[in-house]
């Protein structure tokens, strides 16, 4: 019988911050693909869509952050502590990234006077790429400063969040590119390519996850508690299903299946990309929740006392609402440019699209 308030405070962060970190990472990851198109011509058809994925994502992410603040009106205060607060630096980076991202997007909207300046576009892509990487790393560094929470405090967390951000960004870019209006089928090849790339990224991601859990588990008593809650404790279902199955086994399995058939179907890319994106969100949520609930030597039976903040109806409504907003932005763009064929329409007409066959056909 134990009665404690010590360390059983609900995790300060929940759905909103998980969403914010997810969108921040995904936005950075998507921008990397946009920048890739600037440097490697074969990916250029994706640049536009990746940029359109990236910028709304970071803006909605910032809305999540604002929604999470207790006193959002005072949010300008965030820039006060440039000496030591990671959050201050992160906020500066994210704001700059958003501005540069918007600027980069403007090149694809054609109606700005500078829209045809490719050199400037490339320059902004370079600046954006640097800021995108910084954003992805920051989403992990944010958690890294907490000395009492070994799962967050690990140097692997920024790496993990960066890699996961990239995988989510790629996945979102793939989804939007598939749904997006196109002039030619020239996006098919780069979509296939980045999707293959994503398989390697998620493998890397899971190597980082495994190393993180292993190092934290052996690192300290408190760390072993956090890891236990993930592997076998109250978060095990989320971990094994939401992260491992959805984010690793399913996409890789599908990939392997396609490879075995020597044919990669567009619908399969769509499915596995959705799974990867969802698992990216799950990862943030899991790390936030399990990392906060640590045991402490004095309270050795703490594991049983771990409480996680259970989201309120308000949290669900706002989260779903903001994601719906993001979806609406994406979908709105697609609808507006609907006159063109989309891969989706082709999908609807032809059923499966076997990518390799189609590409061969096009080449002929």
């Amino acid at each position: 019988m134990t009665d404690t308030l010590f360390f059983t405070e609900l995790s300060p962060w929940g759905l909103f911050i998980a969403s914010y970190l997810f969108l921040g990472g995904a936005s950075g990851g998507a921008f990397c693909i946009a920048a890739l198109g600037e440097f490697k011509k074969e990916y250029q058809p994706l640049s536009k869509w990746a940029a359109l994925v990236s910028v709304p994502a970071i803006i909605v992410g910032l809305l999540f952050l604002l929604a999470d603040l207790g006193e959002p009106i005072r949010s300008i205060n965030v820039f006060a502590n440039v000496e030591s607060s990671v959050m201050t630096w992160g906020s500066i980076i994210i704001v700059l990234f958003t501005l540069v991202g918007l600027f980069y997007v403007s090149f694809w909207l054609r109606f700005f006077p500078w829209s045809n300046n490719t050199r400037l576009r490339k320059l902004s892509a370079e600046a954006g790429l640097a800021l995108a990487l910084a954003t992805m790393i920051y989403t992990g560094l944010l958690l890294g400063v907490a000395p009492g929470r070994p799962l967050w405090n690990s140097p692997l967390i920024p790496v993990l969040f960066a890699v996961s951000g990239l995988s989510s960004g790629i996945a979102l870019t793939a989804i939007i590119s598939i749904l997006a209006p196109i002039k030619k089928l020239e996006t098919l090849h780069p979509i296939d390519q980045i999707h293959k790339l994503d398989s390697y990224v998620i493998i890397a991601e899971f190597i980082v996850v495994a190393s993180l859990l292993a190092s934290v588990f052996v690192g300290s008593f408190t760390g072993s508690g956090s890891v236990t809650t993930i592997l076998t404790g109250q978060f095990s279902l989320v971990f094994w299903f939401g992260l491992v199955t959805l984010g690793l086994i399913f996409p890789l399995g599908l990939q392997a299946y396609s490879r075995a058939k020597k044919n990669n179907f567009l619908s399969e890319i769509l499915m596995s990309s959705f799974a990867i994106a969802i698992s990216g969100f799950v990862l943030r949520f899991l790390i936030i929740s399990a990392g906060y609930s640590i045991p402490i030597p004095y309270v050795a039976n703490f594991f049983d006392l771990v409480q996680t903040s259970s989201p309120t109806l308000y949290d669900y409504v706002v989260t779903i609402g903001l994601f719906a907003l993001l979806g609406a932005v994406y979908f709105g763009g697609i609808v507006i440019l609907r006159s063109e064929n989309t891969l989706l329409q082709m999908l609807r007409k032809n059923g499966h699209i076997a990518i390799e066959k189609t590409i061969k056909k096009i080449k002929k």
Partner: protein
Amino acid sequence: MVTMSRRRFIEIAAASAALAGVTIGLAKPSFLITSHPSAESKPTSLKNNDPATTAIPLYDSILYTSCHECDQECAEVAYLRNNVLMKLDGNPNDPESDGRLCPKGQSAIMDLYNPTRLKVPVVRSNPSKGINVDPKWTQVSWDDAFTLIASKFQNIISQYGPQAIAGHSQLQLGNLQSFFSAIGSPNTFQCGSTCYYSWMATQLAVLGNDFSQQDLISGTTKYVILFSNVVETIENPNARQVMEAQAGGAKIVVFDPRMSASAAKADLWVPIIPGTDLAAVLALINVIITENLYDSDFVNNYTSGFEQLSSFIQQYTPEWAAPITGVSAATLRGIAVEFASQQPSVALFRRGPAKSRGQYWKFVHAWAILNSLVGSIDVRGTVTATRSASLASVAPPQSPPQSYSAAIDSREKLLPTPGNVWDGGLESTGTSDSFAESILNGPYPIKAVIAAGANWISSFPNAASWEDALSDIFVLVLDYQMTDTAWFADVILPVPTFLERDEIASPMYAIQPTVYARQAVVPPLYDTMTEIEIYHQIASKLGIEQYLNPYGSEVLDAQLAPLGITFDQLKVQGIFQVQQNFAPVRNFQTPSGKIELYSTNFKKAGFDPLPSWTASPIQPTNDYPMYFVTFNEATNCLSHSAWNPWLSELFDNSLWINTTTAASLGIKDGDLVNVESPYGKISVTASVTEKIRPDTVAMAHGRGVQNSGTDSWARRGVSDNLLIRTATIQDHISWYQSKDEPFGTAKFLDFTVSVSRA
């Protein structure tokens, strides 16, 4: 509530060991406390001129008063800002409270400003009564209320006689008694039979005085046996005494089936079988006598009956006690030897005897013998008699007519106290646990009752019988919160809290004669009247006000006159102490003038003159296999703490059940379980723990408010009283006649229970 597995225990043990090995290092944080604050001295210059903290004085008015959250009545100091009470602390002028308060004392602000307080006089407009029935309260003027009450009382007195009105005061019994002698009814009661009566009466019989004031002194006291739980119930300052004595080298031994906070802090916890304390004490006495460890000077000079005791005690060896108590003979022997050889040593008990199993009066007798054998009676560092300040008594301007006193003296009391058989000067408080039953089936009709701060439905067992008893009679309730009893009232008159009234208080225990000022720290918040004012108003309507004790500031001054101070002077420091040297009381008010180890008082009344052991006839059975004990937490006093949100938030009255037992019943921590006794059934959350014997379950007393006239947090928890039997007057009389129980003690816990998953 969580259990700890063995593996985790090893982890905590290892972690603690690692922790203990940590060297602190001498690098100190840059922590600069600029002043050395004390509660009283305000520093003349503040080096820390933090504008955020020094701009506004935290408190602009400081008043001394006295706590009344429990009967210890600690002197306290009230800090106000803009006439709002912001903080209470102990009065540092008071050596007893030492500037400290327990959680109950600290929480009194929330009683004072509690918006669910009773604020105006109300009468019910729905004649049907029930705990789930809305009384449809209607506000009335004080005068209308008094007119209504007076006419009810007048009718009842003329039709049934004054004895048809009964009353119980937990506020100030003297006021109620003054009113009842004015109307000519003998039927005033207090909670004695469910609490202190047996303990007081046995001491008077054996010791001729009350020598149960705990007086542990750090560095002096060497050995303490607690049959009580002073540390957990934290009757400030008793808990501090125990902890300081322990720090000063005293060994603390606790007998308790449950690991109370006292046991958790003790040097030795003896998880004894419930209700067998007497057997353990007899074994301790046996060892002390047979091994010649007693203080022969004290025994020869101040006690009588040692020879009878010596031969009587031969049968009660530790080996005899071991199977009865569940404590090994070696342990009992060891405790006895240490207790007798490390002087001064003392055994203490403090718990309401009625809450224990078996013949508690005999335990008190044995306890008195145990302390007497080591000379620990009225010796500093052990137990002493309270040194009371002598106040002038208050008398009514006119004595009630002879016929009234005759009626009172004719002993036609509704609830006689069987044990008041010798004139020990002890006020008879009546077997109040039979009150409801006596209203329903008594020898004569009771038509009106007054509950002054008394909450029978929550405080006494068998709430259902109380609900029946109160349904058909006129009920007048004086209280400041909506108790379940008030829910059955016909008229509720709001009284001020102790923070809104002027009176003289005295500590329950003090080594120097002491009085405290209890002053109104804020003017009454609502349209309230004090208890004595209310009686005066009713009496004035009845034309008998001249028979009541007077009240007011002159009366307070007159009471204090023997001390040479006025009430205004008392308020300055909040405390007045008569400094006198400690002179042990050695004239014992017994027939022989000595401590009667062999009690001639008991002998004369036909009771056992020595505390012989009789096993309780009620033992665990297949149907009810578990012992049940209750306890009082630091955050609870009687039943009135439920209304205090700060206390209710911390209070937990889940059922303690041993891990092994719980596993065998398939009960997990936090499960809802049913607890069933022969008298009732409750559903309560299980708290699976290693802190209790496997054959015993326990729960904290003091919750389970049912009426909807208060805020929801007040209704949290379950009442242990729903499991407890009610004794009838016939029971009390038959216990008395069979020489089982002389004092009308309630025998609350003489039952066992069964526990199952809900």
